[in-house]
């Protein structure tokens, strides 16, 4: 069957806040500046706009106000303005309230949103502006002509479990573009390819990530005031683990709560989902959730490394924006406004480059200058090393964060931290147990059996993520499984079975006790944690057939 090709001026990969802001900005520029309107296409792997978007979320409105000044009249789905704010330090049984809100966590004037709803609304604005949004199209690979990005190949449809062509087979379309803007999100598979093939991370700090697990609950009337925003530090995480919890009270009795954990933890037996369940069992949470009902569950990695980990964001024919470029402020716990702003700046760069007829790396390098002259830099640069400081523990991290705030980052040097997955210790190192000896047993993982009311097992949670994939397709998690059967069990005790929040990885044993990795690919919620955290770097996430994945309605 012939592969189709499509030619556009600008291809935007990813229909999240960065990609959609870029699309909307491009259409605005075409209207105001005149000239030939560039043809624009946005591709999105989800079946519908917003379905794979998940965040807390507290939205800093600055970028939205700049992109669409009359956003309120246009019906932007702002659920509530932030009202009462609290920060707690949790011990196992107590919650110690911070006497004042640390300035980066002060959210007055920000809005509570569902990123899923915001994404759907932005998609509607883009489509109203005449942008073609192709949902259900997963970008499979970057098309390169030497060093030049010439477009993206979408994934094939209708391949069976073993890669064979089914009756419904259709080869993925090649979309050629003069400029491709990569907004494929945290650990985007195309940006990952681009970083590798064009060495975009050279001379930059290694990327850093965290995983966020989130649930949406419906609580009894009058339980908590709408607009309340709570952040927690401490329990269930130990000082060596970076992260914290959030609880946001939305209208209609909905409560958004989650736990973010740095993907640079040391304990090979650590399980973020177990930590999340322990978080919910804390009296502060358990009281809020008494008599409440789980509505939805999801998980997503987030880039935490900050300004010094942003790669080179321009190449011949290519720009990178949003989470794909690590544009997240991990101190303020915010990235949506930065995703939108970088998307807008990328759009302005692409538009001018097209008008000048120079879309080479040199022609697109003004994106870097635009970023440096923008609030993106003034927000990210002062806190550039804070996440790296937390790799030395909670207390040094907090002290450094305070110092960075007081000095606005001026007198502090750049801290270095290796890639998060290299921080994972072996069982022998961390626990002093030698799994090679026949009597060894793994240490307790601090797991408590789920009660199916407040806490759930991963499989039940996955059901609440609404994730669905065609079962008869090749596994979209490529794993060099010989590691699983040979050394991983004794060195790390198969950590993939724990860091995956969706029970994709399971170790089954045959009669002789030999381990075999079973990949339940259709459970995948596209969080990318396995691609990031696997200590051997043998797991590669590639997109499944377009349209598959979670359904994050209201998340």
């Amino acid at each position, binding site marked *: 069957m012939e592969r189709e090709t499509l030619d556009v001026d600008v291809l935007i990969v990813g229909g999240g806040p960065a990609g959609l802001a870029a699309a909307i900005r491009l259409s605005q520029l075409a209207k105001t500046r005149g000239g030939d309107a560039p043809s624009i296409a946005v591709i999105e792997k989800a079946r519908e706009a917003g379905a794979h978007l998940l965040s807390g979320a507290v939205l800093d409105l600055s970028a939205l106000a700049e992109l669409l000044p009359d956003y309120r009249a246009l019906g932007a789905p702002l659920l509530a303005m932030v009202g009462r704010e609290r920060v707690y330090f949790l011990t196992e049984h107590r919650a110690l309230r911070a006497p004042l809100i640390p300035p980066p966590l002060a959210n007055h004037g920000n809005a509570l949103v569902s990123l899923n709803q915001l994404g759907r609304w932005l998609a509607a604005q883009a489509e109203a502006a005449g942008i073609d949004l192709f949902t259900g199209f997963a970008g499979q690979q970057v098309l390169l002509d030497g060093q030049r990005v010439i477009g993206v190949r979408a994934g094939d449809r209708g391949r069976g479990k073993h890669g064979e062509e089914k009756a419904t087979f259709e080869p993925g379309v090649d979309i050629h573009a003069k400029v491709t803007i990569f907004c494929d999100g945290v650990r985007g598979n195309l940006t990952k390819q681009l970083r590798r093939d064009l060495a975009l991370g050279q001379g930059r700090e290694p990327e850093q990530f965290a995983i966020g697990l989130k649930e949406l609950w419906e609580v009894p009337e009058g339980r908590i005031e709408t607009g309340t925003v709570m952040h927690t530090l401490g329990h269930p995480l130990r000082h060596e683990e970076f992260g914290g919890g959030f609880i946001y009270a939305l209208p209609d009795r909905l409560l958004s709560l989650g736990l973010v954990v740095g993907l640079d933890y040391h304990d090979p037996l650590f399980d973020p989902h177990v930590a999340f369940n322990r978080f919910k069992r804390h009296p502060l949470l358990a009281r809020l959730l008494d008599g409440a009902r789980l509505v939805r569950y999801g998980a997503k990695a987030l880039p935490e490394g900050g300004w010094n980990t942003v790669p080179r964001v321009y190449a011949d024919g290519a720009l990178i924006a949003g989470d794909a470029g690590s544009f997240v402020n991990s101190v303020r716990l915010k990235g949506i406004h930065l995703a939108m702003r970088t998307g807008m700046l990328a759009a302005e760069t692409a538009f001018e480059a097209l008008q000048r007829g120079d879309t080479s790396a040199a022609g697109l390098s003004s994106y870097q200058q635009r970023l440096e002259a923008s609030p993106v830099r003034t927000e990210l640069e002062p806190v550039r090393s804070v996440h790296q400081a937390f790799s030395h523990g909670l207390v040094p991290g907090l002290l450094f964060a305070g110092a960075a705030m007081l000095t606005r980052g001026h007198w502090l040097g750049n801290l270095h931290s290796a890639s998060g997955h290299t921080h994972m210790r072996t069982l022998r190192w961390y626990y002093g147990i030698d799994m090679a000896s026949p009597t060894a047993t793994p240490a307790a993982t601090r797991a408590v059996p789920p009660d*199916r009311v407040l806490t759930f097992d991963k*499989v*039940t949670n*996955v*059901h609440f993520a609404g994730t*669905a*994939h065609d*079962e*008869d397709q090749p596994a979209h998690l490529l794993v060099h499984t010989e590691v699983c059967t040979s050394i991983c069990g004794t060195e790390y005790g198969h950590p993939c079975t724990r860091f995956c929040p969706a029970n994709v990885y399971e170790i089954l044993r045959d009669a002789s006790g030999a381990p075999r990795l*079973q990949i*339940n690919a*259709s459970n995948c919620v596209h969080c990318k944690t396995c691609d990031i955290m696997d200590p051997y770097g043998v797991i590669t996430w590639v997109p499944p057939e377009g349209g598959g994945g979670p359904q994050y309605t209201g998340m």
Partner: protein
Amino acid sequence: MILVVAEQRAGALNRASWEAVACAQQLAAGEPIAILLPGGGDAATALAGAGEVLTIEDSALASYTPDAQVAAVAGAIAQTSPRLVVMAHTYQARDYAPRLAARLRAPLVADVVGVKGTGAGATFLRPMFQGKLVAEVAPQGDGPAIVTCQIGAFRADAVTKGTPAAARALSVPLEAASRQTVEPPFQEARQAVDLGQAERIVAVGRGIKAQDQIAVAEKLAAAMGAEIAASRPICDNGWLPMDRQVGSSGQTVAPKLYVALGISGAIQHLVGMKGSRTIVAINKDADAPIFEVADYGIVGDLFDIVPAMTAEIEKQSH
């Protein structure tokens, strides 16, 4: 009058048509019921007594096409002026019912799971938002309302039969209506199973441990006259074909009897079978969630229990 549209394929009545008859009987407050069997044939005899059987014999109805089906049912409605038209929510109904409703400008209440009241004031219950809500719907207008019943929502064995009468043939011209010709039926390389049609199902889960142990379950299924099905891990391993999978990523079934062997009852499996009339679960783990939906449960080793059950059933049936 209530008109039920029955469905047949190669002379065999679709089991779900009985459920549509049951729905109609529940709705009728002394009203007459007629059952339309497009294509006619032997299936008419089976239906006789449950209502007046109407047939339309025409070569255009030998194989289903939406054109001929819509013309036939619309013609029958014109001749009989029913108040309600009831059919099972089958693939075929999904295909042509919207078109029929549009043709007649009639309200369509699809995927009905229950009815409230009888006669003209009856209202219909149908799921919304993937089953999260149930809407109560009252069709408006004078024309007939079309109702499709979710499979498994009404009990086929609740159908009452009166004195059988001979079927009456209606004359509806179809030649002009049909623009479609039928390709020879698509033969799949291996026979796909429609577990939704099975009255009894024996399903195996991870507790079966190895592929060669599935024979234990197959023997029980053979003794019971049941179809074999499985939870996802089994099909994922290729121990049984994917079309035997029950659950959110497989088929949804509602048999009279569902026997779950070594299935823990993950929510993904439960959503595919919780509509079964009677659920029997055998599992080693007394805390397994399957026991929350089971009518009968045995905590124990399926390799001890299942052969004993099979032997007992075989003894009873001889």
